[in-house]
């Protein structure tokens, strides 16, 4: 796009023309520098024709549409790749937030809201740029699969089916993983009644005969460097040490001490993380399927594991069953809590419930008079597995009860299990030959980084403790995703799950891995900003190497070069703009989203300097949940305070504090941030954005204090997408706080 040619359009439909003064809006646009035309249905064929005519005749390429929310009618207002469309939301956030006055006149306050949105849209159009996607020089489409169990093999097969090559790296000498040890597997088809023969051998054969799959057994990954589309993996013999092992994370402070010789270098003898192994193999993306290990249950002393001979774990019992015959009277204990609590063993879930059912069946298969007791606090058999549960329950020799197991003792030649609070209404003493504890499935990521990335932020996934160590980033919102773009987790490393679930999971992860490769290939972002062509652009001449961006990036997209200047890896980037918000030098910008653009939009709001009734409050709204919630509030025709102006931001993480200063210095009376919930059960679409923004706001409060402004003028609110009916009240309360503080003393200067 050589030169921008602007065209501004105003829609008067959907009630906009009924409550707003259209001529005044048009003259607002003119004074801002753009002549504006109006139409009663801009998204209709006739309205679009009006715009298309201007594109054809006047060469308009930058279009301002002041109408509905940018979240709707996106196809209607898409005029092709050579044009930019900027939307001013004067419907959901202006026309639909109130009505005319009692006299039937246009509400002055509401009109000012709409006029400010027109100004903002005009400024935005002036400041935005046509994005040019970032493209790697070469793109590698091979998928690296870590782990050759059910998950890994399924992922490789699914990738192969979609036409992508895959390499499986398996630590053990053979493929199959844990499933090699199962005697039988859960039913997979109607009527979900009988246990099935283990199908792992078939899967192994399928993998081995697939020309697109390479298998490397007795191997593991030393390190993975690079970025999606261009990962370099160093593969080594399992258990060996090499100079290409992934270096541990070293903070700036630690590095200083290491340099002074005060601290031993943990990475001595290892290649630096930025160094690329010339002998490494390149891959486009990675599927993490490293699975799990059986949990240790010896901490529960009352159950006697490790002390009493015939107290075993479910994994040990499976081996026993695979190798031969199991005892006739067996108690399966699903929860260790005794009287204290009803939690299951750690790292348990429905799988361990179903394993107990399966193993109870072994007891019956192997013994004519077999008796299997299952004492549970939770019996979880989701979906069709309910039918499996029903089938097992029908067995005369399988006895189920909820209950708290208070102890296991040796008595005579056997064992006695004591259980309280059972369904039988009494405490029970069960005489059995063997006790099986439902030990959980500990993901491999609990014990080691596993993924072994050569990243500045270290070799492991961050903050896995909030997911109990599972390789996860948000189970519901971001399935298979991790906080490392291009690395997708599936199977036992992501959640304790059954073979069937694992296969579904692996398919999902394989498709995610393919999506990532293809997104990198087209130079666009992956979920949640899928298709975004922009990426952060650094003006390095002014970089002070403060490292805030590299530290704060939730996805570890930035490495350091030799001088400590950020080294961007655009295909790792998810385009949240957290780096942009972090940068004190304000040198990080996107083509269509920049410090200057948002700052100018803030400044374009007209702030009356002499009217105490017309305070102005700027609200930065996260585009992911808060902005849609705000739109929904408009759709519900909730009245909204008319002193506030909303500006959408990519993520609160992209909030640069200079915008708050811009707002305050242009005389605005308050600033509010609305974004996703943060903390352990965060809803932030970029994991850390809202949390970081909140921290920055605490600091800006102090800065405002030194200027003589009340820190309370700035605040952060957490909004869920379902909070749309609470938003008007939330805004109202903040406005009332500001009204009590009084106008900004710097107003008019």
């Amino acid at each position, binding site marked *: 796009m050589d030169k921008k040619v602007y065209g501004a359009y105003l829609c008067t439909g959907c009630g906009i023309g009924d409550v707003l003064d259209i001529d005044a809006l048009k003259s607002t646009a003119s004074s801002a520098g753009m002549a504006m035309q109006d139409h009663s249905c801009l998204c209709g064929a006739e309205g679009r024709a009006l715009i298309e005519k201007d594109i054809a005749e006047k060469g308009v390429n930058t279009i301002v549409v002041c109408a509905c929310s940018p979240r709707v009618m996106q196809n209607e207002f898409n005029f092709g790749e050579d044009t930019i469309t900027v939307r001013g939301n004067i419907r959901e956030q202006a026309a639909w937030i109130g009505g005319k006055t009692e006299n039937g006149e246009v509400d002055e306050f509401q009109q000012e809201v709409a006029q400010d949105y027109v100004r903002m849209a005009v400024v935005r159009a002036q400041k935005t740029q046509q994005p040019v996607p970032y493209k790697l020089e070469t793109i590698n489409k091979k998928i690296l699969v870590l782990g050759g169990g059910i998950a890994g093999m399924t992922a490789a097969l699914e990738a192969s089916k979609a036409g992508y090559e895959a390499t499986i790296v398996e630590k053990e000498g053979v493929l199959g993983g844990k499933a090699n040890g199962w005697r039988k597997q859960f039913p997979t088809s109607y009527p979900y009644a009988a246990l099935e023969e283990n199908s792992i051998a078939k899967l192994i054969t399928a993998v081995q005969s697939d020309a697109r799959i390479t298998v490397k057994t007795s191997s593991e990954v030393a390190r993975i460097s690079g970025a999606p589309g261009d990962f370099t993996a160093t593969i080594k013999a399992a258990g060996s040490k090499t100079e290409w092992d992934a270096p541990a994370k070293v903070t700036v402070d630690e590095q200083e001490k290491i340099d002074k010789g005060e601290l031993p270098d943990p990475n001595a003898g290892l290649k630096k993380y930025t160094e690329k192994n010339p002998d490494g193999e390149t891959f486009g993306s990675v599927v993490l399927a490293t699975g799990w290990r059986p949990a240790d249950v010896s901490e529960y002393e009352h159950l006697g594991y490790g002390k009493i001979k015939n107290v075993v774990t479910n994994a040990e019992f499976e081996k026993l069953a695979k190798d031969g015959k199991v005892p006739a009277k067996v108690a399966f204990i699903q929860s260790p809590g005794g009287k204290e609590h009803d939690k299951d063993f750690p790292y348990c879930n429905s799988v361990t419930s179903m394993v107990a059912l399966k193993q109870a069946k072994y007891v019956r298969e192997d013994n004519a008079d077999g008796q299997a007791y299952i004492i549970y606090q939770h019996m979880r058999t989701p979906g069709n597995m309910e039918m499996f549960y*029903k089938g097992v329950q029908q067995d*005369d*020799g399988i*006895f189920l009860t909820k209950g708290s197991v208070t102890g296991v003792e040796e008595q005579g030649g056997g064992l006695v299990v004591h259980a309280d609070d059972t369904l*039988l*209404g009494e405490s*029970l*003493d069960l005489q059995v030959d063997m006790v099986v504890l439902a030990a959980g499935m500990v993901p491999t990521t609990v014990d080691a980084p596993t993924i072994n990335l050569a990243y500045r932020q270290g070799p492991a996934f961050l903050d896995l403790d909030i997911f109990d160590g599972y390789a996860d980033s948000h189970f519901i919102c971001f399935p298979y995703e991790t906080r490392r773009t291009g690395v997708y987790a599936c199977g036992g490393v992501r959640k304790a799950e059954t073979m069937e679930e694992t296969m579904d999971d692996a398919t999902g992860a394989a498709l995610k891995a393919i999506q990532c490769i293809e997104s990198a290939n087209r130079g666009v972002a992956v979920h949640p900003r899928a298709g975004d062509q922009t990426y952060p652009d650094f003006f390095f001449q002014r970089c002070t190497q403060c490292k805030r961006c590299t530290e704060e990036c939730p996805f570890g997209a930035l490495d350091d070069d030799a001088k400590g200047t950020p080294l961007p890896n655009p295909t790792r980037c998810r385009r949240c703009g957290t780096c942009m918000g972090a940068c004190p030098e304000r040198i990080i910008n996107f083509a269509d989203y920049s410090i200057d653009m948002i700052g100018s939009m803030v400044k374009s709001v007209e702030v009356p300097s002499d009217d105490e009734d017309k305070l102005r409050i700027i609200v930065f709204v996260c585009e992911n949940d808060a902005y849609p919630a705000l739109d929904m509030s408009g759709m519900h025709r909730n009245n909204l305070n008319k002193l506030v102006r909303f500006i959408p931001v990519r993520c609160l993480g992209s909030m640069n504090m200079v915008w708050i200063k811009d707002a305050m210095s242009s005389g605005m009376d308050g600033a509010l941030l609305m974004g996703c919930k943060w903390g352990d059960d965060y809803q932030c679409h970029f994991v850390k954005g809202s949390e970081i923004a909140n921290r920055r706001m605490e600091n800006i409060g102090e800065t405002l204090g030194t200027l003589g402004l009340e820190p309370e003028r700035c605040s952060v609110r957490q909004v869920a997408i379902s909070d749309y009916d609470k938003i008007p009240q939330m805004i109202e309360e903040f406005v009332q706080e500001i009204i009590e503080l009084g106008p900004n003393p710097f107003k008019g200067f």
Partner: protein
Amino acid sequence: MSMNVQPDLEFIKDMKSAGGDTLKKCFQCATCSVVCPLSTDGNPFPRREMVFAQWGLKEKLVGDPNVMLCHQCGDCTTYCPRGAKPGDVLGAIRAYAYKHFGWPKGLANLASSGKNLPLLIGMPAVIILVVWIISGGLHFPSAEDFGRYGYGHFFGHWDFNLLAKNVFFIDLIILPTVALSLYAAYRGVSNMWRLMAENAGVGQPLYRPSASQFIKEFLWPSVVEIVQHTRFKKCTTNADRLKGHLPLLLSFLALFFVTAYSAFTQDVIGIFIPEMHGPMSMWNPVKILANVAAIALIVGVGILWGNRARKEAEGKATPTFYDWFLIWMIMGVGVTGLAAELFRLIGVVSVGYIIYYLHLVSVMMLFLYMPYTKFAHMVYRTFAMAFERYRESAYVKSPLAE
């Protein structure tokens, strides 16, 4: 106090074959306890009984008064989300309990299975036939004698007028049968009572009620309640059953009275006034009552027959020998009794005598198998209801203790 669990797999199998085939389906949601009027806060009936049954804990079940108190209104089965049919399972438990408490064991086992039906019918048939042969009465009388004495000379006639020959032989058959039956019931009920007391933790009552106190305070109110059908009237799902059971029960009472009256007038007063022998006049109020009762009996059991058949056709009940055997026996008694009377009235000697023989067989079966078949509910349930009153009474619970 904890319970040492020893599941009895045979017991589970037994219940499954006696109509409780669905018992393992229960997943303890307690919907049954919500709808069951017998369920109380501390005693989630029949949810708990279902888990006992699943775990094969027969000692818990056979001594559980609630199992006997359940009159199978069917609400639990109707509302069960899992198709576990708790009502039918409880029926199976009762069937098992009657067998469990039954004495002699061989007879109890015999009466509990449809496979033994030939023997169950054959034994009384042979006994009566043999007695009939021994009595020398095995021949059809003249039409005139038949008209005059009816079946009064079935076993022949002798001149010893203090005890008619017929009465002697009937007593020879029925009295030992009734004696055995009553003794078996007494034994069974006392064992059940002991077990119930043990399970309810009332081993040592504060005071022991005397026999008359027991009857007055516990047994008689229970009998009154049974006759009034108070609990049946609360049924929703099985409301139709009242229409069958009430006439049936009343007809039994009426027929008991009629039989007693007849025995007294003929065999006691008849000693002094020989005219009292022979069939009663059709217009005698007692005879009218007898005929009305006979019809009520057939109608009542017919309604129960129809209800059960319909429920089985709808899949709401499982057909079992336990349930049908009693219906068949009562129907047999009613139909042969009435038919014998009809053939007497129209004077067809041969058919009448054969039907009368069958009537005797069916009556003997009813008495003989009473303690082991569903008919046993008559005594077990009555005493369970008495126990229900007893366990809440001041004999067991000191009113001062609470």
